């Protein structure tokens, strides 16, 4: 068999239809995970009583287990809990009415939150201690110093890692097909098996992922340059 170059183009266009879904699976958990990440990072940094241990275990366990299992466990576990609660409180709803993508959002957000908390935590720790002391010295409260002085710098320091998180989620989205969501990988496998052209379809999918990754890297590069000039001298 020869490589059918023109079919790569055909497959490319067809698979591209799945782009919005893939982007949704990438962006929504990125945003939610970011919120979880900041929360967890602060809980662990301030060693909030009792829950910082839970937070520590959450981070360690999710970072120590494969994403595919997070998807399966959420996909099977959430409906079970939902149905129990529904029966108990008489919501009159069944878990089968939950759209599949919600499970992906939950699984990916929990996963991303664990990773991002570590990124943000190390970003916060990298901020110059002297600046925190300076913030206190002009009378800021702990909260003010954190939100106004530390976090903005921590996020800037974390930017490259946060970009890697985006790329990680983008690539992770290829696992959403395991619960039958037709994102890029899912679409590719459908196109592949209906036309019996596996190599061509996966090449097309690879090109899309690769292109998205390159764009993400470019944007981060630009963003970093921009922010660094804004913060001239302010950021180590």
């Amino acid at each position, binding site marked *: *068999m020869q*490589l059918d170059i023109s079919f790569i183009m055909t497959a490319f266009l067809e698979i591209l239809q799945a782009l919005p879904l893939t982007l949704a699976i990438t962006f929504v958990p990125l945003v939610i995970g970011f919120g979880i990440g900041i929360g967890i990072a602060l809980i662990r940094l301030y060693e909030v009583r009792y829950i910082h241990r839970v937070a520590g275990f959450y981070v360690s*366990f999710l*970072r*120590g*287990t*494969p*994403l*595919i*299992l997070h998807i*399966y*466990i959420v996909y*099977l*576990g959430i*409906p*079970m809990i939902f149905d129990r609660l529904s029966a108990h409180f008489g919501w009159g709803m069944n878990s089968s009415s939950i759209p599949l993508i919600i499970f992906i959002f939950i699984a990916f957000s929990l996963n991303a939150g664990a990773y991002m908390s570590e990124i943000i935590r190390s970003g916060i720790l990298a901020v110059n201690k002297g600046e925190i002391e300076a913030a206190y010295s002009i009378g800021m409260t702990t909260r003010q110093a954190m939100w106004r002085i530390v976090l903005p710098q921590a996020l800037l320091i974390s930017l490259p890692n946060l970009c890697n998180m985006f*790329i990680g989620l*983008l*690539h*992770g*989205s*290829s*696992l959403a097909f395991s619960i039958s969501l037709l994102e890029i*990988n899912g679409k*590719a*496998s459908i196109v*592949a098996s209906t036309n019996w052209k*596996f*190599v061509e379809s*996966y*090449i097309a*999918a*690879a090109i899309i*992922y*690769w*292109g998205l*990754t*390159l764009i993400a890297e470019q944007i981060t590069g630009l963003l970093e340059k921009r922010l660094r000039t804004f913060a001239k001298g302010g950021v180590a």
Partner: protein
Amino acid sequence: MGKSFDIGLILDFIPKLLGYVHVTFLILAGAILIGIVIGFLVALPRLYRIPVLAQIAAVYVSFIRGTPILIQLFLIYYGLPELLKLVSIDISQWSSMFFVIVTYGLSIGGLFSEVIRAAVTSVERGQTEAAYSIGMSPFVAFIRIVLPQSFAIALPNLANLIIAYMKDTSLAFSIGVMDMTGRGQTLGTTTSHFLEVYISLAVIYYLVCILLESIFSRMEKRVSRYERKFG
């Protein structure tokens, strides 16, 4: 989903699934071996700025960094036999284990190369100069002075990559490898207790992860003992 949740089953499943943990280690070990070779092959042209080869290496790394491991796996699984057919080698009947190890090796090798590159460039120029000044040839200086120091610098990042790929071995079942996750699928089908299976798998992966982390942290202490101020 199957029958109602039974937490007791997890204790029952874990030993059954653990019987397949060696497959995970086998994939990982094979991938690391291939990865080290690929890592150097890809890093050296860029370190020594060899034209053309350096550009090819850069594109290779970009592709590996730019595509999901699952897609890479499918590309090798479907593509490699076709490619080798052109030179009349038939590997279409080879076990899927082979394709997984090759894919993971090629993939981790691309990322290894970046770590190697960064580590080698971070060894101070003065170390090489001192080696030259006592009469070492460039090759001997690289092997005896630069490499051991770069290994110490690179180890934490290499460890992270290896642990990440360990978790990714859970995708090998998608081309039919009978590893823990693959066995988990059949176990789930026969017992209809998928959720318990996946929780058991998560526990096992977590333990393997902790095991690897402790091995690596011990290694790190060993190879970087020269950096400790006191001791």
